[in-house]
């Protein structure tokens, strides 16, 4: 693994009051030597591994549990983005789909911080054939 460069993606939960601009300003004011790029979903940061991890750790504590982070394989200045050039990288749909679930994860992390216990939720069962027949044959 190359330890020299690490690029990270910081994504803000849609339920948060934090904006990408506020996040970028906060990261600038942390005084850690990393490159930063503001994006529509949050920020991209790039630099030495230790510096990037430090910023990601501090960014997670900015406003509750509303900032999430993961590594990014491609460099911060990668020209392939959104619709600008040849569409997105393949991982973008994954991000888009998970972005919608971030408020639920945020609620889970907040509950952990408060020391709440979670309730076991039974898995949804598949529709039985009998039930399907019953639905199909119902007379309105």
């Amino acid at each position, binding site marked *: 693994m190359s330890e020299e460069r690490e690029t990270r993606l910081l994504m803000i939960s849609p339920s948060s009051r934090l904006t990408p601009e506020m996040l970028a300003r906060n990261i600038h004011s942390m005084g850690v030597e990393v490159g930063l790029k503001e994006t529509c979903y949050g920020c991209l940061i790039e630099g030495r591994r230790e510096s990037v991890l430090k910023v990601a750790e501090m960014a*997670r504590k900015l406003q509750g549990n509303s900032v999430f982070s993961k590594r990014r394989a491609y460099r911060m200045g990668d020209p392939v983005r959104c619709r600008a050039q040849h569409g997105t990288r*393949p*991982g973008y749909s*994954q991000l888009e*789909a998970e972005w919608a679930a971030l408020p*639920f994860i945020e609620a*889970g992390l907040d509950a952990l911080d408060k020391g709440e216990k*979670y309730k*076991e939720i039974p898995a949804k069962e598949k529709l039985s054939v009998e039930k399907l027949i019953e639905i199909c044959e119902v007379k309105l």
Partner: protein
Amino acid sequence: MKVFIDPPNSLILFDLVERFGHEPLSTMAALQERIDNIEVDMPPMNVTLDDVVSGLKYAGIEVPSGVRGRLAVWGPMIEEADAAIIVDDPPFSFGCVGCERSELMVKYLIKRRNIPALRLTYPNSEEEGKAFVGKIKEFLEGLQ
């Protein structure tokens, strides 16, 4: 401990594993190595001959090349992992993990390695979110 996450490019799982003090094994790190050292233009879409050969270790020659290409990236990570967190039934349109056969192979490889594994589904409500995060925390704290 090194924890393999499935989907291997998941933001939620990567973040949670790191928050709870473990090292997530993800596609991103493996692809970064290809970008920095081999200078492949667009992994995982572009592969090298070595990738194709290493994929053969995990899936036979008759298996579609897409499955082998994916396993060439994920297989070594599964071998390296001390534990795994798997999210079942991710929406089928999920980017580069949108291959059910590869998903089945990943689950099989994890089962064959006999490492501790947690299986979950993506949350659709706050209550489910609390259970999702709580279970991951309990699982990761229980790893020795």
